[in-house]
């Protein structure tokens, strides 16, 4: 058995496909591509797939991850081509890597995520919000109420925000990948983007929307429903080397886009 991790994008109308339906979608893709997928044992064998971190419905992404199990080791490039040839437009395999047999599931490894948020038309805060938000995020203490399974807890968001900027779309450059540009044909080049690099995963998870929500509350404004358009740039796992701890995209085995924090 060989474990494989795929990196894929989710763009355009398929952003409204829910997490479970996306899982079913990939099961069909694997059958259409006739890849040597491993099925579980038992009377009703099924494909063993798992996503790194479910994306909320309506959000787009250039950095989603899916782990799957195969019977034999594939040629990574051929696998990507094979899957993309039967893929629906809007979902595209961007990268893949073969994992160590003992590696943990993507879901348990997620440690950080890079996000871009924009306001939907008519739902922006009052003009001049960009400077106010910069000043807000510069503060040392950013209290927020976080809903947990056990109830509500007050947290400080500040240590969970690793990097943050407010920048025009045309000037946005990826935090971990300096080649990364935010492409979305439906958005104006000058639209203000809230660009965050935050803690993610099961422990210390920070929903990027929480930053905006608390900011607006402090400004005395109520955030409207669906005010934020959410885009994930990438998802990261944590590593450590002689230079210190870093975050790295989940299929970036060569460490091309390491970011030290």
């Amino acid at each position, binding site marked *: 058995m060989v474990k494989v991790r795929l990196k894929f994008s989710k763009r355009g109308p398929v952003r409204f496909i*829910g997490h479970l339906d996306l899982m079913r979608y990939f099961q069909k893709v694997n059958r259409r591509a006739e890849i040597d997928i491993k099925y579980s044992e038992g009377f009703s064998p099924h494909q063993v797939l798992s996503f790194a971190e479910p994306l909320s419905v309506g959000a787009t992404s250039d950095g989603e991850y899916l782990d799957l199990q195969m019977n034999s080791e594939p040629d990574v490039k051929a696998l990507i081509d094979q899957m993309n040839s039967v893929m629906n437009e809007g979902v595209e395999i961007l990268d893949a890597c073969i994992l160590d047999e003992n590696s943990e599931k993507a879901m348990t490894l997620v440690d950080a995520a890079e996000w871009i948020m924009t306001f939907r038309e008519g739902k922006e805060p009052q003009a001049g919000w960009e400077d106010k938000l910069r000043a807000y995020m510069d503060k040392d203490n950013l209290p927020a109420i976080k809903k947990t399974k056990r109830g509500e807890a007050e947290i400080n968001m500040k240590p969970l925000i690793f990097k943050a900027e407010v920048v025009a779309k045309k000037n946005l450059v990826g935090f971990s990948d300096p080649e990364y540009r935010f492409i979305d044909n439906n958005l104006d080049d000058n639209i203000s983007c809230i660009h965050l690099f935050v803690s993610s995963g099961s422990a210390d998870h920070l929903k990027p929307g929480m930053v905006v929500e608390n900011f607006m509350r402090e400004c005395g404004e109520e955030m409207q*429903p669906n005010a934020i358009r959410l885009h994930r740039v990438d998802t990261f796992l944590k590593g450590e080397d002689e230079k210190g701890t870093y975050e790295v995209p989940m299929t970036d085995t060569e460490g091309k886009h390491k970011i030290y924090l």
Partner: protein
Amino acid sequence: MNEKLALSDDILLSCSKPERYIGNEVNSVTKDLKDVKIRFAFCFPDVYEIGMSHLGIQILYGMFNSYDDVWCERVYSPWTDMDQVMRDNKIPLFALESQDPVHDFDFLGFTLQYELCYTNILQVLDLSGIPFTSAERTDWSCPIVIGGGPCTYNPEPIADFFDIFYIGEGENHYRTLFDLYEQCKADGTSRKDFLIKAASIPGMYIPSLYEVKYKEDGTIESMNPTVEGIPSHITKDIVTDLDHAFYPSKPVVPFIKATQDRIVLEVMRGCIRGCRFCQAGQLYRPKREKSHEVLEKQAVELLKNTGYEEISLSSLSTSDYEQLPQLLDFLLKECGSKHVNISLPSLRIDNFSLDVMSKVQDIKKSSLTFAAEAGSQRLRDVINKGVTEEDILRGSHEAFLGGWNKVKFYFMLGHPWETDEDIAGIGEICNKVAAEYFDTVPKEKRNGQSVEITASTSFFVPKPFTPFQWAPMCKPEEFLEKAAKTKAGIRSQINQKRIKYNWHEANASMLEGVFARGDRKLCKAILRAYEKGCIYDAWGEYFKYDVWMETFEELGIDPWFYVSRTRPDDEIFPWDILDCGVTKSFLLREWHTSQEAKISKNCANQCMGCGAKQYGVGICMEPKTDKNVGYAV
């Protein structure tokens, strides 16, 4: 990728299942408008998950899009939450692929699968901004509204809303219709003249070109063309060679789970059984098979192009498909290696089918199904359902030996000449099957389990083009009384604890009965009920029986006229203008034979002279045999 969406993010994020409205599914077809002369919006007037399960649309969608000059897109009824949002925000109904308004299309086609979708047709027209009636649609400013499918075999209750009904199998004459349309648009022919010309294409019924005259008692005096040169009757046309007919190799695969979330492989059309209550058994005659070689090729392609994990064989009676053993042999090999499941719709229960079922299903989870339809042998003879008690007990015995312990029975209540003894027979046969289990499986082999029998009854609705089209239908209170008797009958049995009983709601069946054999006078009732808020009548939670009854009263329409009468032998029916290939004299003969509780032979054993031989294909042309082809379930 078509990035355009007709609905805003705000709307899509606050409605249930946004995936119903965004298109872009695998195998959906997008074309360049520059190359397209005809835009066809194909609608199943119910919610997306139901509509996406329908084979007919997939066939015609694939066929239309195989024409370079035609772009066919799909439309479904917006669910009730979206319906409200679209009205509130004045958003016109759109087709899924282009997300463009349906109003701007050349054709809007409806598939009419059941009577209780009629108000949803009006919903679709309304949300599209298309006038409800053909009479109001006088120029080319809105699409030609065309209907097909089983309900077009009595389209009169919805005749006002349609420009054309297509009678017969869609593969045959759409190309001719499209050519005529393109020619008429090019040379400036009026919409009315286009419809008159279309009336001469086989199978095209243009209801506005026929005048109905009524007798004083409300029955029909005559139906005649109002334009010279158009046919006085419209004859069903069928595919003569299914092996070479278009079959979609790339059906659209939805993102969300549709009701039929699997590949559908149609193995044959038509049925040799002449069950007297069954409309499909008459409409799709004669039985025509596809060769197993063609089916095998299609199955492989479909698996490759869809990625589905299940394939289902589709027909009215799969056990009558003569090449079934070869086909299943192939599928078992092909599917087993690919982890694809095979689903077998109700097969005749015998050693062959049990053997196959044990290979493709988990015996512990699956159940046997007997569509006995009536509880006593006498009544099964009345309805010409060939299955005997001996068949059922022998099949059960074999199945219990094979490890099954769940049995499902389907019955109908309200067949013509049903007596209390017939109803009592339902409990009796269920009890005998339970007893058969205890006799067959010794206690030490039951592994702590026991037999589980589920009996379900639905209410019989007489349909056009069946021998029972003359029969009266029970009123809802009579139905409920019969259900109560059935229940009491089951509860009086020794093994009653092993039998579960379910029955259907009666009021919706009554409305179905009104529409099934209704006439044009009902058009205004359907429109009025829609205006009063009736929609999604097939969905129990939205069905408003009181509003319907109030509407009939308001318009002076007696609904019982359509359901409760025993129609005289010589009555002219609203659907007599159509010819489904089976003659009225044959149906009448069968109606009389049923009164004597006598059965008629199936098409494989003897030709009963129904009239379908005129097509010169299929079972009609094969030599008759004495072979016992068993019964249909």
